[in-house]
Each structure stands twice: as structure tokens, then as C-alpha cells.
């Protein structure tokens, strides 16, 4: 059980994460959605103990009740791979180019589990089979540049599974991949989560992938979790104005908005862009881009309300 | 205006100091650096001889100043000579391309097989050791270095739109090289020249130390050190001052070069 309560990550320029709370139980599949700069990668960094040195962490982060908030790097090294593992966006550059992929995947097993060379090798072969790498025995000896993007992402998944973690964080795991490869990787992650009873935190800006992969969802904007709930419900009936905007901006071939004459309209977009950290509003971070904004929004930080924990003054007033 | 990089500022101060002293020595030194005074040998620092005198009673400060001038002159002539030949070759290679470019670059590779010391040794064996030979040897090793820098920078400029436009307008390669290529590679060449200046000071000192450079009675930091080495038990302090001057000069030009590069090419500065 991983638990974050009111975790804030503060840089000199501002807060990259503002009072985020999240509980992750075995087998949970949680999607984290948001634009770049929303704090979703910082949330993942918290769970891996990989928050940059320059940042200050406050709030509480615990694993099975043990407080990890101020834990030393050495403590985290024992947690990583064995309890939490992570895969990253760029399978092209996330693997050491000078190492055979089999050696890369075997390394944490040898370091953390003390496996012998041959035991580790057998385990790598089994893992390669589990993540759907064909002909694992010959792939072991290949270098990353000899594999396709999808194969590399599978190798990274195998690496993450090397020490049977309880939690797998996938940070934009499909963004750099072709659409059909992305689908297969998404399904693989779901399958692994179910078969191993392993929690999955699936970070993406791709709503369709999140819908496919997860049961629960947290929507992030500007370092806040602005709305959370069951994935299906949130995506069907968003409460927070930002979630609404995000869904409206989704290109959906089934629901291309048309005007009264039946001709296609332009896809609605959320006006403006995510401001840099130092320029974020003190209050609701979505203020300035929001369609239902009031005076108080920019200065007063909205508290989570309702079953969706929506951080929005308008929702609180029952207007949205 | 962003604040200047620290290495640039420190380098500029040290260079100004060394060049200033070298310039001053043209018109004034406390004493004649070559004037002997056997009675006053190994003199302690005093109001007359600020850092004392050497084994022949010559004033140390005056010698160090004259040596600074000689060192700067050698470095300047060597870098200018080697640099202009090298840049000319690099520009030629870049402008004409084809087998000429290949040929020039192969020659440049060949140049790298001869460190300055080896070249100076050959010249000394044939013509006898002299400062001229040292200058020629240092100039020689600068040719391939500048040829490479000039060619690499020029090749980039040749692909720019305004150069393509100039070519389309029928300008010949010589004119384009003069009007567009040369001004645009100047920054890279100056940065390299500053760094090679530091290398040249070091090379001159080494060659003079070995007796392949400045010949008596000319003052040189390297030669002062080789004389001091034989007197280590008698007057160890004589081995300090010239080395210290070399370090200041080399450090100054090295830092100045790094600083200039950081200013002119922020992309490279990132990795530092």
C-alpha cells in the first residue's frame, strides 16, 4: 500500500506539486492525466524517491505505513525495482546503448536479489516471454539499437518487472510508439497488472489509452489533482472545467462536433497554454484559461469538494 | 547584457597583466635585464632588486619582464603565421571542395603526427638551435589546427541561405569567402587563436628550457628555469618566479579562450 498525503514539491520557481494525495493498493490501476507541466511526472518521481535535489518535499509519503518522506537515497535504492518500478517515455534513449539488453535486465536481479549469472539469465528469458518478446534467447544478446521501438519498450517493461515490484509506474509509455504498437503495450501493461496483482500507475495525456488501461483516474493541472474518480465516470461526465475542456479537445471520430448546418466545426481547444511554474496563479491554477472563472479564483486556492474531490470554486457553488 | 562568464573576466585580467608587463618592458625595466654584476650575485630581494638577483647578478624582475615580452612575441608571431596559413588552407578546402579538400585535410592529419617538439628537434639538428626555429616549429603545428577549425566552420556557413543566395546571384567563390565566410568564422578562429596562444607560450617555454628556443643572452622564462635547475641547492627560489609567470600567462590565455567560446557559442558552454 502506497500512500501520499498532501505532498507538496517546491522549487525556487514555485510549486511543481501542490498538496497531492493518492492511495495505491495492490492491483489498482490508476491513470494520471494532464498536459506537460501538470505535475504528473513529479508525482511519479515522488513515488520513486527521485525528486530532484533542488526541490523541497513536504507532506507525507508512506509505503505500508513506513514514512518515506525524508528517506535517504540508500533507502530508496532498496525500494526501487523491488517495490516500485518505472518505465519511461522514450524507449529509444532509456536503454544503455553499450549493453546487451539481457545484461541490462539481469543487472537489478543480480544486484538486489543476488541471483547467479545463469539464474538471472533464465529469469530474463522468462520475463521476455511474459512481456511478449519473441525468441528471447537470441534477443538477450542484442543491443538496443538492434531492436524496434516497441521491442525496446517491452525490454524496459521486463527490466521494471525484474524484481517483482508491487507498483509499476508507466510515464507516457506509449507516446513515442506507433498507434498499433501503443495499443499492444497498453494491453500488455493491463495484463501484467492483473496477472501479477501489481498496482499500475499509468501516466498519459492520451485519454483513450488511459480509458483502456485504468479503472481509476486522477486529472492534474498545474501541480494540483483537480478531479478524481472512476475512469469511466470521470470521462463520461467530467465535473471540473479543466477536465471538461480536456475532453472537449479530444479528437473523437465518433463525435466530431458539427454546427447547425451539419458541417464540421473546428475542434474546441482550451485557450492559452500552461504557464511556467513561476507565473502560476496563487489560487486556482487553471484561472486565466477557465471559462467559468470568478474574481476569487486567481487568489484563493480551491479546496477539493464533492465525490470527485474537484478543486474548483464554481463546483463548490454548484455552478459547474 | 548578461554578466560575463567568470573564466572570461579572470582570463582577461591575467592577460591584461601579462601583456601590460610585456608592453612596459619595451620602454622600461627596473634594470638592464642582461647587465651582469658578479659581485651582486644571488642577491636577496631589496628596494633595488625587488626579487633579488640571479647567479650572474642580473635583476630577476627585469629578466621576467623581458621574458614576458619575448614569450608574447614568439606566441604572437607563431600563432599569426601558423594561423593565417591554416585558415587560408581551410577556407580554400571549404570553398573548392572535392579532392582539394580531401588533400588539404589529409595534409592536416599528417601535421598532427608531428608535435612541436619533434619539429623543433629536426630544425635544431639541421640548422642549430635558435628562437627562429622554435617559432617556425610552433607555427607549423598551428597550421593543421587552424585549417581544421576554419574548414569545419566554413562548411557550415556555405550551407546558409544568404550564401546560397549570393551564389545564385553569380558571385564567385573568392568574393563569397571574403565577404560572407571569413567574417562568420572569425569568432571561431579568434577563440582558437586565444587557446593556441596559451599552448604556444607553453611550447616556447619548453623549447627554451631544452635549449631549442631562446639563446643567451635573450631572456626567457624557460631558459631561466633551466639555469635555475642547476642551482637548486644554492638558490631554489630562482626556480619559482619564471614558472609562476608561465602559469599566469598560460592560465590567462586559456581562461580567456574558454570564456570567449562560452560567449560566442552558448551551446558549447552548456556542457561546462
Amino acid at each position, binding site marked *: 500500500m502506497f500512500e501520499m498525503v498532501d505532498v507538496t514539491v517546491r522549487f525556487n520557481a514555485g510549486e511543481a506539486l501542490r498538496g497531492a494525495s493518492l492511495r495505491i493498493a495492490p492491483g489498482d490501476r490508476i491513470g494520471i492525466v494532464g498536459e506537460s507541466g501538470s505535475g504528473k511526472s513529479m508525482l511519479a518521481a515522488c513515488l520513486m524517491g527521485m525528486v530532484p535535489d533542488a526541490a523541497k518535499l513536504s507532506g507525507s509519503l508512506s509505503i505500508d505505513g513506513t514514512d518515506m518522506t525524508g528517506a535517504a537515497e540508500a533507502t530508496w535504492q532498496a525500494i526501487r525495482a523491488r517495490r516500485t518500478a518505472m518505465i519511461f517515455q522514450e524507449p529509444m534513449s532509456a536503454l544503455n546503448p553499450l549493453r546487451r539488453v539481457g545484461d541490462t535486465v539481469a543487472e537489478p536481479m543480480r544486484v538486489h536479489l543476488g541471483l547467479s549469472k545463469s539464474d538471472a539469465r533464465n529469469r530474463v528469458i522468462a520475463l521476455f516471454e511474459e512481456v511478449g518478446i519473441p525468441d528471447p534467447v537470441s534477443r538477450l544478446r542484442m543491443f538496443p539499437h538492434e531492436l524496434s521501438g516497441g521491442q525496446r519498450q517491452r525490454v524496459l517493461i521486463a527490466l521494471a518487472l525484474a524484481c517483482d515490484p508491487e507498483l509499476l509506474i508507466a510515464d507516457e509509455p506509449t507516446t513515442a510508439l506507433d498507434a498499433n504498437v501503443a495499443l499492444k503495450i497498453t494491453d500488455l501493461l493491463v495484463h501484467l497488472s492483473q496477472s501479477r496483482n501489481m498496482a499500475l500507475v499509468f501516466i498519459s495525456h492520451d485519454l483513450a489509452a488511459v480509458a483502456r488501461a485504468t479503472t481509476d483516474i486522477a486529472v492534474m493541472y498545474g501541480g494540483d489533482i483537480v478531479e478524481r474518480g472512476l475512469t469511466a465516470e470521470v470521462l463520461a461526465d467530467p465535473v471540473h472545467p479543466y477536465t471538461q475542456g480536456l475532453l472537449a479537445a479530444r479528437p473523437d471520430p465518433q463525435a466530431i462536433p458539427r454546427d447547425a448546418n451539419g458541417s464540421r466545426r473546428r475542434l474546441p481547444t482550451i485557450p492559452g497554454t500552461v504557464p511556467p511554474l513561476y507565473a502560476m496563479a496563487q489560487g486556482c491554477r487553471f484561472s486565466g484559461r477557465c471559462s467559468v472563472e470568478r474574481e476569487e479564483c486567481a487568489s484563493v486556492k480551491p479546496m477539493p469538494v464533492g465525490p470527485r474531490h474537484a478543486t474548483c470554486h464554481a463546483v463548490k457553488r454548484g455552478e459547474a | 547584457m548578461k554578466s560575463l562568464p567568470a573564466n572570461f573576466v579572470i582570463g582577461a585580467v591575467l592577460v591584461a597583466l601579462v601583456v601590460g608587463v610585456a608592453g612596459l618592458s619595451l620602454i622600461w625595466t627596473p634594470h638592464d635585464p642582461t647587465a651582469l654584476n658578479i659581485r651582486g650575485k644571488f642577491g636577496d630581494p631589496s628596494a633595488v632588486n625587488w626579487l633579488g638577483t640571479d647567479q650572474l647578478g642580473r635583476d630577476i624582475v627585469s629578466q621576467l619582464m623581458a621574458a614576458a615580452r619575448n614569450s608574447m612575441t614568439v606566441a604572437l608571431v607563431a600563432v599569426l603565421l601558423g594561423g593565417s596559413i591554416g585558415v587560408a588552407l581551410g577556407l580554400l578546402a571549404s570553398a573548392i571542395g572535392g579532392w582539394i579538400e580531401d588533400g588539404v585535410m589529409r595534409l592536416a592529419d599528417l601535421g598532427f603526427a*608531428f608535435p612541436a617538439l619533434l619539429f623543433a628537434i629536426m630544425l635544431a639538428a639541421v*640548422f642549430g638551435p635558435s628562437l627562429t626555429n622554435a617559432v617556425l616549429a610552433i607555427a607549423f603545428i598551428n597550421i593543421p589546427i587552424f585549417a581544421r577549425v576554419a574548414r569545419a566552420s566554413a562548411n557550415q556557413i556555405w550551407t546558409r541561405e544568404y550564401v546560397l543566395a549570393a551564389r545564385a546571384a553569380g558571385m564567385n567563390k573568392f568574393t563569397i569567402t571574403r565577404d560572407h565566410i571569413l567574417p562568420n568564422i572569425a569568432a571561431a578562429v579568434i577563440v582558437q587563436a586565444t587557446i593556441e596562444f596559451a599552448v604556444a607560450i607553453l611550447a616556447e617555454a619548453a623549447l627554451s628550457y631544452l635549449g631549442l628556443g631562446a639563446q643567451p643572452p635573450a631572456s626567457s622564462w624557460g631558459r631561466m628555469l633551466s639555469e635555475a635547475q642547476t642551482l637548486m641547492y644554492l638558490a631554489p627560489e630562482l626556480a619559482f618566479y619564471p614558472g609562476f609567470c608561465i602559469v599566469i600567462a598560460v592560465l590567462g590565455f586559456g581562461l580567456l579562450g574558454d570564456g570567449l567560446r562560452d560567449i560566442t557559442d552558448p551551446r558549447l558552454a552548456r*556542457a561546462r
Partner: protein
Amino acid sequence: MMYFLIRRTVGFIATLIAVSIVVFAVMNILPGDPALTILGMDATDDALAALREDLGLNEPLLARYFGWVAGALTGDFGLSHSFRVPVSELISERLAMTISLAVAGMLLTLLIALSVGIYAASRHGKAGDWVTMFISQLGIAVPAFWLSILLVLLFAVNLRWLPPGGFPGWSEPVAAMRSLILPTVALALVQSAVLARVTRSSALEVMRQDFTRTARASGLSQRRILWRHVLPNALVPIVTIVGMQFAALVTGTIVIENVFYLPGLGRLIFQSIANRDLPTVQALVMLFAIIVVTANFVVDLLYVLIDPRLKARA
């Protein structure tokens, strides 16, 4: 792969040939009459004629060049004019000294530079980084011969721990080792200043890459990440500099041997210059140039061993 090897080998041989032409030309054409250079202006005509005959100067230039190359290939560099023995004998007596100095210097350089460079990179932006980089910046500006003099002043003149120079001969191994300590340290300290900086910036470049993050996410210790993941990837620029440095180191031995009065090839060169012994100087300069060119050739081959991606492309 094969193509790459063949191309590089051909280039290597071509460079060696070109180097031999340059050396031969400088030593034989520039002086006009080598015999006159050797014997000086006041030599008698008979002596000059005899020496010309001795050195084979009466033969055409081309024949002399090929004769020299053919001899060199079989280890025959002709007769030393001043020592009156074959040049090859002079060289083989002194080669061990120069090679030991260069190899020991290179090993010590690598040890110091890689440790310091990786340490500085791991402390990026912190005090340890600043201090080591400040010292290395200073180290680049320090001439090896001055550092040698300072080391001698400290360890030989003041502390009397080590001999100030000279060499007792290999028959006394302990004394021989002791007399090589200061020269090796002087060589290595100066060279490692440059290499440490290259190692640091190359390591920092690699540490920014994604796979370093992957390694950290796998729970590997920083030490393991630095030495097993970062360093191998940082090696390509490091090896380039090491190749150039080996060349600098070999010519550096010429200087150091003269500082410490060690009987190696560097001393021999200077004795030969003083004696106007052109055949010996010519052989030695060629030998040093061969070492420099070979070092760069080896570096080219090392790249392929380090980086499997180059193997595919090469």
C-alpha cells in the same frame, strides 16, 4: 566492419609513408649538404668526401630514401655518426626507459583523471566539483618541466625521500623504480589535468541521458551507475583525448628525461643534436612520429570495440 578496418589500415600506412617522406626531406634536403652540417664549415674537403661516401650521399636522393626505408623496416637505421655504433643499438639500449616512462605515465594519468573526472561529475555544481576543476584548470597551465623541478625541490632536495635525477640501471630494480617515481608523477599530473576535465564534461553529458535515469529507477547505487553505465558511455571522447595525450606523453618523455637526466631516447635525441648526428636524430624523430601515428590508429580501432553501434555502421 571489414571495410572500415581495411580503410583505416590503409590510411595508417599512408600516413606512415607520408611521415617518413617529411622526416627524410627535412633532414636531407633542407640542410643542402648533410655532410657539411655534420662536420661544420671548417671541415676539410677530404673529410667531407669521406663522410659523403660513408652516409651514401653520393647516391641519388630517391635511392637514398628507399634505402633508408628498407633499412628501417629491417631495424637497420644506419650508423650513428658520433657514437660509431649502429643507431638501432643505441635505440634498443634506451627504448625500455622511454617505454616504461610513457606506459607508467599513461596508466597513472588514467587512474587520476578518470577518478577525479567522475568524482567531479558526481558532485556537479558542489564544492568538490569546483575545487577539482579549479586545480585541473591550474594543472593545464603548469609546464611539466616546472612541475618536475618543484617535485625535485620538495621530495629530493628538502625531504630527501627520492633521488633528484639520474638512473642506477635496471640491474638495481628498487633503486631504478625509485628514480622513476618523480618523472612518472610529473608526466601524469600534467596530462591528467586535461583528461579529468574531458572525463567530467563527457560524464555530465551522459548523466543527462535517459538511460541513467532508468538505471537509477532500477535501484542501482550511484557508484554503480557512474562506473558501470556512465563511464563506458563517456569513453568515446575520453579515448580520443587519450590517443592525443599518449602522443603528448611520448614527446613529454623527451622533456622529462632531460629534466631528470634519465638515459632514454629523449636524452639520446639531445646528445645527437649536440653532436650533429643527423642519422640518429632522423631515426629517433621517425620513431617518435611512428608512435604518435600508431597511438591515433589504435584509438580509431578502440572506438569500434567500445561502441557496438559503430560496429554496425563501420
